[in-house]
């Protein structure tokens, strides 16, 4: 680890701290339908949209109506994306004449982008036409992010409102989120990325002559190896910047190119890298301030932020330490950081990013449910690769996905105040609302669906040939690849241990089911808690009320997250990265 690396990491956290308040205030104003600077331009568009589709903007919904509207919207959007993928060959904006996407892959990708997972078991530049990328994938990048954000807003309203069944209007919230929050920031953000060299065009791919032709050995389907002289290169391009910015700002993560943010056309400079990192955490961090502002307990919002920041620092410290230390089996190689080299474990990492910016990206993208990568997590040391895995296993509540991070940590808040209530023998309260058995049951349903899906699918995949056929390494590393696939899918993260071949019927369909369960079957009980809280009266604070505004609450919240995560996933981790680390220490690699 170097001082320079730590300076960059802490500077990033400072930047996140600084954007939290202004963004939080802005989102509060947008969702409370208060005045903003953008109203003059956007309010007329908003009114026209409601008139066109027949939405009554003053109609407020119960949690059930809100949730069903969200489900139907997501179902229709997913179907449209599936059909678009299956017909892209006959549609415009396909200069490379790419064929229709295979049914299993189209289904998996449709589920993946609808759930904000953006898991990609294909090579985008040779699979998806420009139309599919723009009207299908980028569209979902926006709307799946908007859905996550508005659900978090409903949870906040559930806490803040009293004695009401009404929690807002799904169509109004989603429209305002798209028009006021996502589109304006992405418009500016994409121009910033273009200024750094991210490409944005609709041109066919360019063929260039290599200045240094190469001779490569190619093995055909029959196993015969021949030498080939390569003199040309096909350079993929397209409308990258417009997709890149929402990829991070909406914590989606699906890259325009297979190499994702390691590709120089997606992430060309250190400044572009920094901007992309800030974009990932901006909304999730801002929403903690929105939580405090809308519930009139700003200190509670900051207490949640502090718990998240602590877990972020703990994760980055462990990953940075493991990767900077390098691989103990490479005894002959110089792995020390110097002015000439990053040192440490540089396999799967870009030299231009080095260790610090690679591990920072890996930690941020798995703390959030983003899944964008600028290095390959499969190539990390066992401990370094375990931290991204744990980040997702904890429910991606360390700032988390847009909206998903906040409503995810809300489950742990409910459990934390319940545990605190048990300790002092009083009915637990949360910001003036009594937490009852129904709320705790719903919170546990949200936790258990993730556990059931991750461990169930992983167990099935490791004992069946259709599961083990996808792994590229034996032993505990192969197990980690499978576990990561289901953790990432269920957690709607989308990053992968890149060694796994997931473009098979089994992985395309099973990860799609995991993504759908992890997204929607987690959301439903959380929405039920929000609906139940909104109905309740508030009770005045008393001497027995557990304060949710200070360091004690943050500590209890962190402990609850870690205990639930450890009790659930420690056995699985011990079979994967922990065992691999111990075997590496004993001189065995996989």
């Amino acid at each position, binding site marked *: 680890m170097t001082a320079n690396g730590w300076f960059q990491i802490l500077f990033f956290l400072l930047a996140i701290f600084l954007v939290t308040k202004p963004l939080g205030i802005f989102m509060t104003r947008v969702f409370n339908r208060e005045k903003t600077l953008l109203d003059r331009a956007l309010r007329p568009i908003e009114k026209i949209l409601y008139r066109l589709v027949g939405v009554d903007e003053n109609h407020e919904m119960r949690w059930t109506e809100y949730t069903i509207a969200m489900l139907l919207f997501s*179902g229709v959007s997913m*179907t449209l994306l*599936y059909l678009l993928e299956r017909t892209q060959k006959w549609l415009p904006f396909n200069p490379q004449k790419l064929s229709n996407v295979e049914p299993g892959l189209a289904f998996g990708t449709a589920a993946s982008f609808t759930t904000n997972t953006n898991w990609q078991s294909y090579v985008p530049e040779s699979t998806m036409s420009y139309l599919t990328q723009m009207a299908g994938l980028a569209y979902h990048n926006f709307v799946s992010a908007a859905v996550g954000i508005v659900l978090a807003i409903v949870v906040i309203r559930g806490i803040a409102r009293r004695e009401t069944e009404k929690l807002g209007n799904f169509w109004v919230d989603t429209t305002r989120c798209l028009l006021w929050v996502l589109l304006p920031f992405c418009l500016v953000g994409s121009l910033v990325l273009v200024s750094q060299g991210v490409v944005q065009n609709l041109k066919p791919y360019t063929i260039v002559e290599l200045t240094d032709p190469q001779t490569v050995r190619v093995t055909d389907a029959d196993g015969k190896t021949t030498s080939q002289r390569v003199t040309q290169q096909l350079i993929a391009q397209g409308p990258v910047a417009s997709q890149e910015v929402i990829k991070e700002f909406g914590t989606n993560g699906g890259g325009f190119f297979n190499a994702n943010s390691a590709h120089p056309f997606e992430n060309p400079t250190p400044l572009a890298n920094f901007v992309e990192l800030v974009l990932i955490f901006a909304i999730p961090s801002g929403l903690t301030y929105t939580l405090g502002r809308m519930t009139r307990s700003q200190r509670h919002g900051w207490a949640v932020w502090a718990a998240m920041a602590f877990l972020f620092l703990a994760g980055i410290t462990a990953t940075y330490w493991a990767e900077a230390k390098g691989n103990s089996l490479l005894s002959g190689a110089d792995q020390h950081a110097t002015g000439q080299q990053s040192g440490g474990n540089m396999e799967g990492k870009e030299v231009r990013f080095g260790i610090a910016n690679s591990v920072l990206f890996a930690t941020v993208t798995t703390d959030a449910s983003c899944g964008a990568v600028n290095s390959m997590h499969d190539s990390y040391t066992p401990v370094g690769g375990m931290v991204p895995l744990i980040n997702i296993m904890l429910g991606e509540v360390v700032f988390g996905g847009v909206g998903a991070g906040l409503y995810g940590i809300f489950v742990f808040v409910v459990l934390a105040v319940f545990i605190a209530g048990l300790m002092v023998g009083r009915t637990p309260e949360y910001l003036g609302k009594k937490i009852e058995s*129904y709320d705790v049951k719903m919170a546990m349903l949200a936790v258990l669906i993730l556990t059931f899906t991750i461990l169930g699918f992983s167990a099935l995949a490791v004992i069946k040939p259709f599961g083990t056929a996808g792994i590229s390494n034996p032993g505990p590393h192969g197990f980690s690849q499978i576990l990561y696939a289901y953790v990432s899918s269920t957690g709607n993260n989308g990053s992968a241990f890149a060694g796994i071949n997931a473009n098979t019927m089994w992985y395309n369909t099973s990860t799609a089911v995991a993504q759908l369960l992890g997204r*929607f079957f987690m959301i439903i009980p959380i929405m039920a808690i929000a609906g139940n809280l909104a109905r309740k009266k508030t009770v005045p604070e008393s001497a027995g009320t557990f304060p949710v505004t200070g360091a004690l609450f943050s500590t209890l919240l962190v402990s609850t997250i870690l205990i639930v995560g450890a009790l659930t996933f420690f056995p699985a981790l011990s079979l994967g990265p922990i065992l691999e680390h111990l075997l590496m220490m004993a001189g065995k690699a996989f």
Partner: protein
Amino acid sequence: MLDIVFLAATALFVVMAILYVRACERLKGTKS
């Protein structure tokens, strides 16, 4: 054929999710 299977699976999932919403709502009505 696979197209029909996948489109039907999508519709089935949405129906199941809506039933889950109803089940969670009903659970509120039962004594705990």
